[in-house]
């Protein structure tokens, strides 16, 4: 569905806890990430106490990427996953770092160049809902902490399924629903009270970090996302809860 049709039909979606017109969400999300791009990695380390590195490492392990393969890292942001994949696929492979946000992509590009990860890495600015790649052309797709910002998640999952090679795998690393009610309570307090405060102190931007917390709550839980992946045509879908379900990594295979 096009933006024009969305606007005409008045279809709505969520932007954090706010309800907005579907065609507005993209620019609102862009605003958030333009604002946080320069301090994104520092904030990730602070907000998760460095645990995001463990979540990402396990995701890379589940990808089982081999030398010579083509990997697409959607919403790759500052390129931490792409850098690891670049090493794994080697000179004969290819890593595509994709992000809809120009600011994040620039930060990622600079960081990867500085770390010497070049040669098999390519940057693409694109929308996850309409991936500009041929059918069955990618061995592995990862999207880490990006799917919840996509306006139409079903459309994005279908788009990913389309470009995966048969046997290729999609990995979705995303915040999810804690499995323990006590942990959920602590997590809620942290997300809605401490997180915006940290955002204000470190990035001078409480609103963006409040959006991050709200968008996490609006994101589908483990089982719902699993169903969405199956609906998109992926098979053998499964998920692994991490840190008590605060984060989950979902994996699906293209039939």
């Amino acid at each position, binding site marked *: 569905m096009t933006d024009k049709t969305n606007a005409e039909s008045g279809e709505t979606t969520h932007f954090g806890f706010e309800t907005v017109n579907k065609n507005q969400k993209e620019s609102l999300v862009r605003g958030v990430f333009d604002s946080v791009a320069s301090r994104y990695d520092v904030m990730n380390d602070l907000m998760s106490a460095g*645990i995001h590195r*463990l*979540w990402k*490492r*396990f995701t890379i*392990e589940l990808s089982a990427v081999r030398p010579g393969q083509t990997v697409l890292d959607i919403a790759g942001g500052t390129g931490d996953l792409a850098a690891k994949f670049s090493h794994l696929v080697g000179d004969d492979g290819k890593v595509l770092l994709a992000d809809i946000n120009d600011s994040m992509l620039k930060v990622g590009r600079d960081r990867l160049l500085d770390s010497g990860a070049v040669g098999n890495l390519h940057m693409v600015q694109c929308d996850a809902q309409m991936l500009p790649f041929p059918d069955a052309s990618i061995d592995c797709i990862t999207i880490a902490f990006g799917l919840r910002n996509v306006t139409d998640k079903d459309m994005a999952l279908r788009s990913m399924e389309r470009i995966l090679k048969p046997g290729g795998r999609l990995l979705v690393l995303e915040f999810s629903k804690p499995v323990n009610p006590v942990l959920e309570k602590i997590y809620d307090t942290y997300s809605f009270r401490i997180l915006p405060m940290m955002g204000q102190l470190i990035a001078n931007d409480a609103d963006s970090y409040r959006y991050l917390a709200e968008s996490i709550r609006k994101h589908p839980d483990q089982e719902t996302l699993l169903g969405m992946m199956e609906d998109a045509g992926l098979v053998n879908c499964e998920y692994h809860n*991490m*840190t*008590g379900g605060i*984060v989950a990594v979902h994996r699906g295979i293209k039939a």
Partner: protein
Amino acid sequence: MNTDHDPAVITAVLMAAEGAINRSLELDPASARDLADLSGTVLAVECWAPALEVFAIVEADGRLHLTSYSEQPCNVRVRGGLSDFLTLATAEDPAVTLINSDLEIIGNSAPLIALQTIVAKMQPDWEAPLVEVLGDVAGHQLANLLRQIFRWGQTSSQSLRRQLSEFILEEGRLSPPAAELEYFYQEIDTLVLKVDRLESRLKRLAHRVDSQIQ
């Protein structure tokens, strides 16, 4: 193998262990070279209690990669309990320990023994990072001090183990010596055999008495 452990926790432990091993290998180039000869080797360690599966993959540059998930074919898979693995890890002769332990080995055991031998023989040069940070003089002095403390610790622990063993076996007579225990087991075995023979003789006798009465 599915485990109930949080992947983030396992990943943290493995990352820490991998970092420590690879840092030690950086300080011991000879071991790193030996390890590089095993490049591409995938060793799977499957522990029953606690339920855990870990893969050790030797990379081309002589570094070790530890992971809880791998789809690469394994050269060797070792299964067992935690205590068996701890015994193997600290064994002076890993080949003998492997044969005598309850560990189950699937695949080629040669790379496993080679890997254990490399780890056991590792002698990291702890002076290098100290000199890097503190300079030649202070770094060397501190390294000497640490070496002396380490040597003293080793000697003391060996001596303590020997004296404790002597006290328990000889002076306190709290536990019998291994030879005495072995002799005792042999006597039990002989007694079991004699009882078995006596039982069969009695059965035969009872059978003969029964047949004479009839």
